[in-house]
C-alpha cells in the first residue's frame, strides 16, 4: 500500500469572492518528488502558501503523514518538517553563511545565553559539505553567487531536518553548472527519502526530476499522475488549455541594410573588452552569454547607465557614447531592464503612470511650465495597454504591484512603445513569466521588428534566442566570442563559445 506524505483533500480558497483554488484534490507519495506546474495565477503559490501556514484554506483538509494538518503560522509549517526554498531567497546578505544557517536557533553552551562557537563551526561545515558547497562558513552571503546562495538555503532546510522540501523556481538565476550542481543535490535528497515539491516553468527540468506531476489551471487541478505519462507538449497544452502550435512567430520582413545602432571598440576594464557590432533595421540581434559574461553590463553601457573607458556608440548616426539615460531616450533608445521589480517598474504606482513615465515629455502643454496633459497621456497609455493586451482594471487606478508577472512584464515593454524608439534593448524579457505570457511577448517583439525597430535581445535561454533572432552574438568574459547567423544556429557550438575562456572550461565541458 502506498504511504502518502501530503494529502490535499478538496482544498478551496477565494479572495474577496474571486476563487483562487477550487476543490483541489491530490496526494504526494512519501519520499517521492512531485512536479507542480501551471501558469502564473493558476494557484500554485496559493496552494503552497496554505501548506506553509501563510493563510488558511476556506474549505477542505490537508493531511500530513496521515494526520490532519492545519498550520496557523509559517513557524507551524517549519515545525512540522516543511521547508521552502524560495524564488526570492530569504537570506541576510550582510551576515555570514554560518549566521544565516543558524539564525533561528544558535547552539548554546548549556543553558547559558552564549553561543557555542566550536559546535557552530563544525555543524555548519558539515551542512555545507552535505550540499557539496566548498566555501568558508565565515563568508558573507553577499559575496556568494545566486547558485551558492541557493545551496546555503537548502543547507538551512536540511539543518532543520525537513522532511518535505519545496522548491519554487529554483533555477531562474543559475548558470548551467550551478543548475547541474543543484540537481545533484536534489537527487541526493531524493535518495534520502525526502519528499519534494518542485515548482518550475522549465518543463524539461520538471520532467527530469519528478516522479509524479500535478497540473493546475485557473485554480483547478487539470491532471495528476506518474511523470512517465507526461511529455512537455502535454504539459503545455494542459497548462494553457489549448495547444500552442508555433511558439516562436515567423517574421514577414527581412533584415534591413541601415545600421541603427553602431558599437565600435567599447571597453571598460574588468567588464567588457573591445566590443564592436552593428544592429540593423528590422533585425533581432541576440546576445547570449552566461551569468557574468558581461551581456547585461554591455547593455547598461550602451544605454548610458554605466560608463565606458574607450569606444564609440551611436544610434541613428547620433553619437551617444557618454550620454546619460535621458539623452539616450531622446535619441530613440529604449531599455527593458533585467529585473522588473528593481529597475523596471514603480510597483506602487498605477499602470498608466508606469507606461507613461519615459515619455512624459511628450504629454506637456503650456511650454516651459511643462504641465501634464493627463487626458492625452491616458489615451495613449490605454492604446498601448490594449495593443499588448495587458489585463488590468482601469489603468489610472490599478496599481502595478497587484498584477501578475506576465502583465507586469508587458508594462515594462509597453512603457517604451509610447516613446517610439528606433532601437530596443531587451534584457531577459521573459524571465519568470508563464508560457502564455511568453508567447504574447514573442509576438510583440516580432511585430516591433516588422515595424522596423532594431532589437537587441539579451537572454540566457538559448532556445528562445534561436527561435527569435536573426543573428546571435555570443559573449564570454566580457568579449564577443562568436557570431551565428540564421539559419546556422547550432546550440552546441553556441554553448561551447559561451563557455570558452571561462576558468574551469574543460571541467564544464567534460
Amino acid at each position: 500500500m502506498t504511504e502518502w506524505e501530503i494529502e490535499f483533500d478538496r482544498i478551496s480558497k477565494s479572495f474577496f469572492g474571486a476563487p483562487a483554488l477550487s476543490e483541489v484534490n491530490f496526494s504526494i507519495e512519501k519520499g517521492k518528488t512531485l512536479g507542480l506546474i501551471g501558469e502564473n495565477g493558476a494557484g500554485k503559490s496559493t496552494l503552497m502558501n496554505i501548506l506553509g501556514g501563510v493563510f488558511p484554506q476556506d474549505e477542505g483538509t490537508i493531511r500530513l503523514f496521515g494526520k490532519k494538518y492545519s498550520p496557523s503560522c509559517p513557524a507551524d509549517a517549519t515545525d512540522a518538517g516543511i521547508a521552502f526554498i524560495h524564488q526570492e531567497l530569504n537570506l541576510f546578505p550582510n551576515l555570514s553563511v554560518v549566521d544565516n544557517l543558524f539564525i533561528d536557533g544558535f547552539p548554546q553552551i548549556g543553558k547559558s545565553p552564549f553561543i557555542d562557537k566550536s559546535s557552530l563551526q563544525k555543524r555548519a561545515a558539515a551542512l555545507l559539505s552535505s550540499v557539496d558547497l566548498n566555501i568558508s562558513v565565515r563568508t558573507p552571503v553577499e559575496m556568494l553567487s545566486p547558485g551558492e546562495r541557493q545551496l546555503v538555503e537548502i543547507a538551512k532546510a536540511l539543518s532543520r531536518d525537513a522532511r518535505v522540501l519545496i522548491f519554487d523556481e529554483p533555477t531562474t538565476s543559475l548558470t548551467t553548472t550551478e543548475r547541474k550542481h543543484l540537481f545533484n543535490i536534489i537527487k541526493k535528497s531524493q535518495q534520502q527519502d525526502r519528499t519534494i515539491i518542485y515548482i518550475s516553468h522549465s518543463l524539461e527540468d520538471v520532467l527530469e526530476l519528478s516522479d509524479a506531476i500535478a497540473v493546475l489551471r485557473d485554480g483547478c487541478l487539470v491532471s495528476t499522475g506518474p511523470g512517465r505519462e507526461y511529455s512537455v507538449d502535454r504539459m503545455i497544452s494542459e497548462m494553457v488549455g489549448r495547444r500552442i502550435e508555433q511558439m516562436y512567430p515567423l517574421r514577414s520582413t527581412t533584415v534591413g541594410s541601415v545600421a541603427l545602432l553602431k558599437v565600435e571598440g567599447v571597453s571598460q576594464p574588468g567588464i567588457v573588452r573591445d566590443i564592436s557590432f552593428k544592429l540593423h533595421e528590422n533585425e533581432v540581434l541576440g546576445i547570449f552569454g552566461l551569468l557574468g559574461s558581461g551581456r547585461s553590463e554591455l547593455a547598461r553601457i550602451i544605454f548610458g547607465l554605466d560608463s565606458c573607458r574607450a569606444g564609440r556608440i551611436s544610434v541613428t548616426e547620433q553619437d551617444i557614447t557618454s550620454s546619460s539615460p535621458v539623452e539616450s531616450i531622446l535619441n530613440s533608445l529604449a531599455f527593458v531592464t533585467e529585473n522588473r521589480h528593481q529597475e523596471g517598474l514603480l510597483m506602487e504606482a498605477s499602470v498608466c503612470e508606469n507606461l507613461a513615465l519615459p515619455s512624459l515629455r511628450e504629454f506637456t502643454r503650456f511650454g516651459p511650465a511643462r504641465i501634464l496633459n493627463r487626458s492625452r497621456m491616458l489615451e495613449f497609455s490605454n492604446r498601448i495597454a490594449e495593443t499588448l493586451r495587458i489585463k488590468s482594471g482601469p489603468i489610472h487606478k490599478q496599481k502595478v504591484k497587484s498584477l501578475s508577472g506576465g502583465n507586469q512584464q508587458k508594462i515594462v515593454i509597453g512603457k517604451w512603445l509610447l516613446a517610439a524608439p528606433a532601437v530596443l534593448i531587451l534584457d531577459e524579457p521573459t524571465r519568470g513569466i508563464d508560457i502564455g505570457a511568453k508567447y504574447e511577448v514573442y509576438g510583440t517583439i516580432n511585430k516591433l521588428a516588422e515595424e522596423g525597430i532594431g532589437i537587441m535581445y539579451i537572454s540566457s535561454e538559448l532556445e528562445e534566442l534561436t527561435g527569435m533572432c536573426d543573428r546571435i552574438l555570443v559573449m564570454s568574459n566580457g568579449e564577443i566570442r562568436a557570431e551565428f547567423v540564421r539559419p546556422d544556429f547550432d546550440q552546441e557550438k553556441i554553448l561551447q563559445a559561451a563557455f570558452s575562456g571561462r576558468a574551469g572550461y574543460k571541467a564544464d565541458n567534460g
Partner: protein
Amino acid sequence: MPGEIVLSDHFVLVITILYFLLIWAFYPHMTGRRNIANLFSNVWPLLALVIGQMFVLIVGGIDLSQTSIMAVTSVLGAMVMAGRFDPAKFEQNPLWGMVFSEQGGLLAGSGWAVPAAIIIMLAVGVVIGFLNGLAVAKLKMPPFMVTLVAMSFYSGLAIYLTRSENIMHLPDSFIAVGKGSLGPVSSAMLIVVTLAVLAFIILNLSILGRWFYAVGQNVRTARVSGVPAARVVILAYIFSGFCAGLGSILYSARLEAGRPTLGRNLLLDVIGAAVIGGISLYGGKGRLLWAVYGVLFFVVLDNSLNKMPLQFYSIDIIKGGVILLAALLDSLRTRIAARQTAAGEIA
C-alpha cells in the same frame, strides 16, 4: 470597513474636527474670534515649512536644516534692513562698521532695503538647499547626515554673526508682511496660499511632480526611465530651502526681529505635522492636502494644550506622544494597504 476610514484621504481632517469639538466642550472660548484668528496665524508659517519639507520627504529624503536656514536668513535679512543697531550690543561684532553700524543695516533707509532683504533671505535659503541637494544627489551622502550637519552649521553661523543678539528695529513695511492684512485676509495667508497653489501645480499637474514621486518610489526605475534623478532631488532640497526662507520672513516679521535662534524648537513641529498628515518618511507618498491637514491638526493640538493648565514640559511630552501615535498610524496604514494588495494579488 475600519481599514477604509484609516486609508481615506480625509482621515486626519475628521480626527482634527472631532478633537476640536471635544476640546470645545471643555473650553468654549476655543471658538472665540480672537482664538480662531490666532489659530490661523499659526497655521500659515508652519504650512510654508511643511510644504517645503514635503517635497524632500517625497523624494525619499529629509531636511533637518530648515529651522537653521530660518535662523541664518532671519539674521542676514535683518542685517540688510534694520533701521538701527544698538552699539552696546553690536560694537564687538566683526561686521560692525562694515555691514551695519549705529545708523542701521547695509541698505537701511533706502527704498530697496525691504525688497532686497526679502530677496536675499529667499536666495540664501535656495543656495543652502542647493548645497544640501548637491551633497545628497551628487556625492550620494545620506540626507539625514547632510542636513543634520547643515542644521548644526547654520545655527552656529547665525549665532556667530550676531553674537547671539536679536536684531531689532526692522522697517514697518517688512513687519507688515507678517502682520498686515488686506481686509479679512492676512498677508501671511495670501503668501502661503500662493505658495500652496504653486506647490499643487508642481506636484499634481506638472511633469516635475511625476518625477518627484517616481524618484521617491524607486530611484533606479526612475533613472532607467529617463528621469533626471539627480536634478529632481536637488530641486526638492532647493524648494525646501526656499520655503524655509519664506517661513523665516513670516516669523521674523511677526516677532519684529532678526533672531539667531529663530525656529529653534520648530523642527519637531514641521516633521510631526508632515507625518501626522500622512506624508511617508519612506518616500514616494505625500499630497498637498495631507500637509494642510497635518498642519491644521498640529496647530489645533498646540492651541488646545496652551489653553489647559499645563506646564510647558508636559505640553512637549503630549506633543511628542501624539507624533509617535501618528508615526504608528503611518506604519499601520502601510500594513493595511499592503495586506489589501497582497490579497488582491493572489486573487
